């Protein structure tokens, strides 16, 4: 369930799964200590942020090594940017923004590993309705979403941010957030269909999902 939540509490998304914690108001206490020059507080702050930064970077970049780079770059950017952090947004929200930007930078740098366009995506076909869905394959499917859509889906379903927070992180209108999340999830449905043993349905839906993603954002 989305919405503003107690800081530091893991969230349950629409799918019922527990997500990465959205952060803690206690972060601000650490931030203030860091600003006062407390190196131990900085270490604690970075350690506290690492899991969620890593989670965003890992799913945004779709690659362990790229995620390591992006996460480290995000932490560096956080350290550099702390003096200018005005506290108007939650620290975790700001940190997510930094992580998304670092991931997008990393993706741009790693064009040599660019995935195929979604409409060229070859859906793995698995026989049998009881066949399980492999996390690795879901990871791969997510990676095939355009980065803008992937970011919205990851921030919502993996990080548990609400739409307003995602809008703040991505600096886009809330309506665009809703559209990107919807289309991003819809694009994953054919993949899940294929995994569940419905390749025919998956192929049909894949075409419409691809068309939806190509049609661009709604305001």
């Amino acid at each position, binding site marked *: 369930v989305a919405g503003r939540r107690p800081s530091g509490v893991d969230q349950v998304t629409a799918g019922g799964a527990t997500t990465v914690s959205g952060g803690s108001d206690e972060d601000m206490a650490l931030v203030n200590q860091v600003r006062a020059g407390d*190196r131990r507080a900085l270490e604690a702050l970075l*350690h506290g942020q*690492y899991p969620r930064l890593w989670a965003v970077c890992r799913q945004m970049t779709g690659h362990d090594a790229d995620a390591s780079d992006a996460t480290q770059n995000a*932490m560096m950017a956080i350290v550099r940017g702390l003096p200018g952090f005005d506290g108007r947004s939650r620290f975790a929200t700001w940190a997510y923004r930094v992580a998304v930007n670092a991931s997008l930078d990393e993706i741009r740098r790693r064009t040599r590993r660019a995935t195929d366009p979604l409409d060229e995506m070859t859906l793995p076909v698995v026989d049998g309705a009881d066949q399980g869905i492999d*996390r690795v394959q879901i990871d791969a499917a*997510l990676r095939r979403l355009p980065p803008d859509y992937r970011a919205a889906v990851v921030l919502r*379903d993996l990080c548990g941010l609400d*739409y307003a927070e995602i809008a703040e992180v991505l600096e886009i209108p809330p309506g665009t957030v809703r559209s990107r999340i919807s289309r991003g999830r819809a694009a994953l449905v054919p993949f899940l269909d294929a995994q569940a043993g419905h390749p025919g349905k998956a192929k049909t839906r894949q075409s419409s999902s691809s068309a939806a993603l190509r049609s661009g954002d709604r305001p």
Partner: protein
Amino acid sequence: VTDLSDAVRQGRGHLDDEVISALLDDELPTVVRDQADRHRSGCARCRQRSDELGRAAMSVAALAVPGSALTGSALTGSALPDPAGAAGHRSRADLAVAAVLRACADAPASGPFTLGEARSSGTDTGTVRGLRPNPRAGSLRRRTRGAGVLVGVAAVVGAGLAVGGLHSGADPAGPPRSVILASSLGSFSSPTSLRSTLEATVASIDATGPAGAPGGTESVPCHQEAARTAELAAATAAVPAASAVAGPEANFAAPVELSGVPAEVFTFPRLSVAGAAGTVTRVGTYAVVVEDGTCAVVARLGW
């Protein structure tokens, strides 16, 4: 969404995906949410679509914790490609945080430091710049012997490499960027030239100062280099054969010896660099050489 009737119209009598998705996320105004909920309850098609989108959301959410099982009747889990699991995650965090802390300041670990002075990692600009030679780097020869670690695979220099910052007199505020792209890289006239250049690099680094902590304050965590190097090694496994076929412009690998330790260097044509010829510096755990103003190599130093 303020009026469900519009959404239903767009969905041709059914809720459209945006409404269903927002309904799943409890992101609809109360009145609209109640209307949508009622519609969904009485509409098999919308219920099915709601299940599908919810399952997509859940599949992504289940990626949150490596090793956690997906839930749901048709879903079973297998681990993300994170063989180290939770312990590896902690280790990765420790290394990354330590590297950032090292980069933040040269102040003692327990002392105060100044924010905003951490050297850029290049995230914003994609620019790769070098670092000062580390006066505490110590002797590569001694370090490699003592650690019993072979010098690793030589790596690469990449696109956007601002070699103006790669020489030994580089901007001291240059970033500790050690992850180096391979999309546009330098070449060497021959493996012999490369070897001599690398040996000169080692000698230069040996001369930089007394022994100190491996990696020094300019380094970034070795795990990144390890991952990158392994990746590059795999990616360039066929480089020699490709080079033989493709000619001098193709990438190639050449065996070299650094301080008596076997190593391998990959070279990549088409790097355009602007650094002064023969200049050497360290970037993280790599030694960087600019040769003839157009060539560059990064040799992993083995710690």
